[in-house]
């Protein structure tokens, strides 16, 4: 096992080349040649009808996308739908490799498709940002518990977590920043039954978080998604890999509950006589250290299977004491507070947003930050512009 840092960003000229290639791949100019043949006209005639030179038509055929008014003219001349002139080939620049679902929800094709569609909404946003950054990568040789523990230790060290305590949600957000992960808060469509999911969009590591997720429910999935990111496993489309999922779970468990913490909790629990009192003690640990107790109870039972710890109801009650991430983001219903909150929780995403804020329309901003019906995006844009001026 080893840790390496991969320099994802290439030289500017190289990035530019890639963009051009993507543009050519999607505009299917060769189809104009077929249309000219089918309609028995010449390139010269098409040039005349569209008011351009013969060379320009040749450029279109060879892959140069036409201006909008010429595109309309071509469609009208051949009486075709513009969709015919663009190829819909998927180029693999966006992937949702795996998804950790909510409770017992299954990973379905519909879920994967919706997650991919959500990620695709950010295609241009991340294409507009050349600075994907330098990411730490950890590779393990196998998927054993021993490897999981080693990776967890490395990640904990990288994040600077307290050796004896579980991380709270703010610690996890800090870890994600160190891993180069851009966090996007959204209200997930119903079919995406997940608290969060990891994607790669044009080399950017991105984690989408469902705003309705309770922060206690959020910590473990975020650790799980962070493990995906740091392992840099890249699967295209619906490449769901159950073994990888279980391995990421294992690592996430070790990150969240270090051995010393489990020992401390167990040493307290084992001396308590009644089940109710044990569960109350577990709840107190959860309350103090910001974690759900289901996972911890499982760990305790793996040490001593005779200990009865049915924590379902207690876990639910404990979560009621904590906010959802959406409630935290929108607590003041004030654009300034919202901007400062996303800056704090998702600094890398906010930086990308600041880089592009001058050119983003108000509506697109609303879509990007998923606040369409919560707050007006105009004052948020004003605040982002103000910040951009203040922090060059």
């Amino acid at each position: 096992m080893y840790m390496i840092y991969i320099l994802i960003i290439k030289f500017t000229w190289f990035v530019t080349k890639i963009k051009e290639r993507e543009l050519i791949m999607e505009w299917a100019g060769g189809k104009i040649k077929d249309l000219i043949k089918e309609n028995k006209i010449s390139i010269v005639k098409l040039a005349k009808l569209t008011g351009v030179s013969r060379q320009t038509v040749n450029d279109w055929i060879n892959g140069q996308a036409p201006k909008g008014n010429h595109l309309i003219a071509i469609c009208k001349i051949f009486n075709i739908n513009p969709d015919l002139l663009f190829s819909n080939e998927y180029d693999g620049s966006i992937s949702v490799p795996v998804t950790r679902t909510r409770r017992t929800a299954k990973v379905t094709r519909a879920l994967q498709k919706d997650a991919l569609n959500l990620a695709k909404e950010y295609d241009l946003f991340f294409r507009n940002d050349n600075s994907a950054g330098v990411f730490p990568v950890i590779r393990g040789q196998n998927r054993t518990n021993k490897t999981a523990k080693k990776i967890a230790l490395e990640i904990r060290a990288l994040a600077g977590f307290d050796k004896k305590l579980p991380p709270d949600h703010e610690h996890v957000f800090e870890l994600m920043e160190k891993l180069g992960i851009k966090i996007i808060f959204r209200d997930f469509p119903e079919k995406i039954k997940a608290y969060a999911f990891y994607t790669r969009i044009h080399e950017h590591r991105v984690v989408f978080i469902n705003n309705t997720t309770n922060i206690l429910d959020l910590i473990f999935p975020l650790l799980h998604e962070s493990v995906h990111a740091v392992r840099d496993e890249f699967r295209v489309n619906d490449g769901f890999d159950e073994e990888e999922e279980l391995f990421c779970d294992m690592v996430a468990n070790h990150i969240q509950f270090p051995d010393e913490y489990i020992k401390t909790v167990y040493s307290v629990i084992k001396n308590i006589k009644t089940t109710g009192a044990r569960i109350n003690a577990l709840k107190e640990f959860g309350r103090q250290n910001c974690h759900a107790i289901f996972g911890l109870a499982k760990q305790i039972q793996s040490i001593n299977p005779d200990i009865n710890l049915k924590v379902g109801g207690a876990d639910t009650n404990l979560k009621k004491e904590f906010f959802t991430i959406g409630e935290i983001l929108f607590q003041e219903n004030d654009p300034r507070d919202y901007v400062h909150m996303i800056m704090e929780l998702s600094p890398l995403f906010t930086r990308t947003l600041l880089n592009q804020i001058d050119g983003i329309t108000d509506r697109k901003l609303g879509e990007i930050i998923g606040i369409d019906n919560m707050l007006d995006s105009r004052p948020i844009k004003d605040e982002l512009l103000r910040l951009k001026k203040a922090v060059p």
Partner: protein
Amino acid sequence: MNILCDTCSILMLIRIAPNMFCDPRYECVTIHEVHQELFRTQKSKDKYPWRLKYKSKIKALGSSKIKKDDRDLYFKAIRNMIQAGKTNKKTGHFFNLSYADQIIAACSLAHNFKLTTVDGDLNDFIIQEFSGATISPLGIINDWIKKGILKWNDELQAVFEDWDKCNEAPQSKNEIRRFEKLSRYKYTGP
């Protein structure tokens, strides 16, 4: 030529000319998507609390007046162009327009309407890709004054101060000069 008014422009202009959509001399139209944005969402609720007073005055083009075939053709062309990645030559970034932005652009182009919007990227897209016509809110006011359908006064002048308070988009120097010449008032807005 009619002017298709986007949400922000309507919020800037409706108090100056409440009849802008009722009296054909103003040559202003808007569409259902913009109307919805103004009244059916929570947007703008706090910033423009007075907007509900004008609800009956803001009428969207009826579906019979929309050239659906042309609008759909433009919309599909725009959607494909955006997805393929068209670069804004001014900013160097890819145009990144929302669904509603694309509908508004398609409508204005299909009907040959001038577009008034304060969103730079949308403006740039219309001009760069379609050589389309756009006009700023102050440009519209100037045209109204010039045509004699609007007389500038102190009450209307106060709206400019509100534009400033609401952090509306800055208006061009040319239009500001033109306004001061036509109205004989000093421009006090953004």
